[in-house]
């Protein structure tokens, strides 16, 4: 099937099998390998991307379902050489170690902060609970989201 979609502002066309998973389209056809795969059951969130602004786990979406949609992957967060405040906060707050869950965490976090610009700690923890991290114990990921929230509000 032929599909058209926009990824990080760039238009793409592809001829795909109906069963092709979106994550495989992104990683293996479009070669955007920042989106990762960590499980088979939609639990880990390493493959999280934004579809029309909403976070989705791209291992559980078919590529054909993205036809006509606007996607953002981790590679699309940096704009004109400027990191998204959440990317910068992950670095400054030591919110990552092996880096494998990081792109998914970033995409979930970016969408969450758009919806909830002044979140409580509990709200942040609930928001990222669909993204598993084995390295950080989440403490510094929560701090990074808090820090980015402050920056986006112009407070830091």
């Amino acid at each position, binding site marked *: 099937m032929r599909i058209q979609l926009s990824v990080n502002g760039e238009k793409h066309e592809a001829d795909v099998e109906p069963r092709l998973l979106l994550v495989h389209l992104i990683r293996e056809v479009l070669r955007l390998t920042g989106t990762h795969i960590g499980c088979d059951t939609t*639990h880990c969130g390493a493959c999280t991307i934004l579809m029309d602004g909403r976070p989705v786990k791209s291992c559980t979406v078919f590529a054909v379902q993205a036809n006509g949609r606007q996607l953002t992957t981790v590679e699309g967060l940096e704009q004109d050489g400027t990191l998204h405040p959440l990317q910068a906060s992950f670095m400054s707050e030591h919110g990552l170690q*092996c880096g494998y869950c990081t792109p998914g965490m970033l995409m979930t976090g970016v969408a969450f902060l758009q919806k909830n610009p002044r979140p409580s700690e509990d709200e942040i923890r609930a928001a990222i609970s669909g993204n598993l991290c084995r390295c950080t114990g989440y403490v510094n990921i929560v701090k990074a989201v808090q820090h980015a929230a402050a920056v986006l509000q112009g407070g830091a």
Partner: protein
Amino acid sequence: MEPRTSAEVGGMGHSLKRKEDPRFIRGKGTYVDDVQLPGMLYLDIVRSPHAHAKIVKIDSSKALAVPGVLAVITGQDLAKYNLHWMPTLMSDTQMVLPVEKVMYQAQEVAAVLATSRYAAADGAAVVEVEYDPLPVVVDPHKALEPGAPVLRTDKKDKKDNHIWHWEWGDRAATDRAIAEADVTVKQDIYIPRIHVASIETCGCIAHFDKVNDKLTVWMTTQAPHAIRTVFALVAGHVGLAEHKIRIISPDIGGGFGGKVPVYPGYVIAVAASVLTGKPVKWIEDRMENLQADSFARDYHITAELAAKKDGTLTALRIKTLADHGYADAAANPSKFPAGLFHVCTGSYDLKAAHVEVDGAYTNKPPGGIAYRCSFRVTEAVHTIERMADLMAHQLAMDPAEFRMKNFVKPEQFPYKSALGWEYDSGNYHGALQKAMDTIGYAELRREQVDKRRRGELMGIGISSFTEIVGAGPSKHFDILGLKMFDSCEMRIHPTGKAIARFGTKSQGQGHETTYAQILAEELGIPAKDIQVEEGDTDTAPYGLGTYASRSTPVAGAAAAMAARKIRDKARKIAAHLLEVAEEDLEWEPGKFSVKGAPGKSKTIQDIAFAAYTNHPQGMEAGLEAVSYYDPPNLTYPFGSYICVVDLDSGTGEVKVRRFVAIDDCGNIINPMIVQGQVHGGLTMGLAPALYEEISYDESGNVQGGSFIDYLLPTAVETPKWETGHTVTPSPHHPLGAKGVGESATVGAPAAIANAVVDAMWHLGVRHVDIPITPAKVWKLLREHGVTE
């Protein structure tokens, strides 16, 4: 410790932002599955639904008819090259692909090679295998009973399922001390089978270049050099020589011990690439990862602890049955079948101890590796810390007071333990006191008394652990004969920038930053000017890899030693440039100055330039060094953790209200990274304490084989960790550092378990095995008269 270097240099003690992060936050890391080569083929694996069965027939015809499928590889195919079995790191054997029978559910049975990931999976789905089921042995106790079906029929003359017996310590003295003790406590403790479940699974791309006869393997390995040597030794007969094998360990998405072993998938991919001359990718999925890769733990322990009436501990006796699955595929140093389990006297000054372990075969996947710990140290710590709490409660002593009474005292270091280890340094009283002060221990005990009056269940648990890491001294430590040194090779360029390569491999620990800081500390070259590389066996010096918290104790020491060799040469060059004797120079990080004339100096950058442009007559040009560091002893990080839990008597849920962790890893290189390691380690301690277990039903069906039922803690369950540290340098490490990656995973489960039992002690509860699920607590509460 105040940093000796400026923030610009960024040596030890600076919370330098990580050099790894700019690529990771942009999604620009390179993990194995990100590598895509032209003409690459894909491997998918057919796995057994049975835990024990004869293979009657494998019919590949339907698979071969699937478009894109090129071949179906079976054990018969590998047997032609004698590659159907492979050695484990513990001198046992395991199958690559079976010829006669399968030994556990999810074992590899055949592999499908195809032109795409999807075609390979399609092919694997239609390989038809006829099995003849055999009796299944799941319980290791039953495995050792007379008449149990013998599993390893491949081993001639093997008449039972017993693998080995190992014991350590003075049996007679221990038996005597326990017989004569005023008070003894005895407890069965099961430490269940768990899985590291790094978020990246395992995989590889094998690429055999037929023109140059060179095999390159990108693989998820924590020990690339050892893997290269193993490949050369195992496959030498089919023409793979060590100089023609290149292992590249790219960015790794978490290792925790699970990426130390060689799994069959790697070997099949290599064989497929050698046969086809094409790159072959094998990436396991999560269920394969949980169901077939090496497990950790699975120790069935019986422990006895003895004390005098006044609470002075006298002796410890431990018997353990280790369930290894169908092969002993642990990743221990060769001389230690039960790892370093005999550090089980812990932080206590025990005069007598004896420990024995028996290994048993069962119809489960082979193992066991460490789960973020140094060779069975978590098993040891969990046992002694549970037993210490049992004894304290038995004696009606406060568990903190009891520990303070029995700790090895600061003046006893270096301390020779009853089981023969020489602890390098420690201040156990200091760490526990700091934890108690931080959490407000006395106030919590008062609150607990009040709550008990009201019928509320609150518990306080302590774990004062001692680790043993940094394997290890070559006299005792080797893996397949390879001594457990590690290495650093540093080269300084003419403009004073540098590259340093190591025999280890980071999996998230931040080596690119930490090692650069060590070198910056020693040479005064800014950490940002030092590029650190690991994981490519064609370029890095030989080393045994990263696991068991050995990178800082061994490779970190090698970095310091290499830098000091460079400094020695730099001193000669500086003397030449300043036209003084070497003895007239003094060093401060970054420059040599003439004593008494501080204005007369040469920076390390000046000296580096001179090493290539104006070096002294008779001296070789260049400024570089290599160090292979053989540690004189292990290091012994320690700490005290205090956990407060509230139990929901209606649901049995354990709520961790507070958790204070005071760690002592000696001198700290990067405080930010150390704290991050502790946060992560604590969460991987919480996980097996409350959530994670892989178990099997009586037919050998795996329970907990996917993220649906193998429960990793999310941000919601994970407490807000409170961390702190004391600093007791290691006297033998060149930087006084000890290693920290695993301390928290080792120490945390006992604190949580002790807190849960503490909450129910007054009801008569004495023990609960981890994971402490709501169902277990609910049942215990009902059995002890709590009805809501």
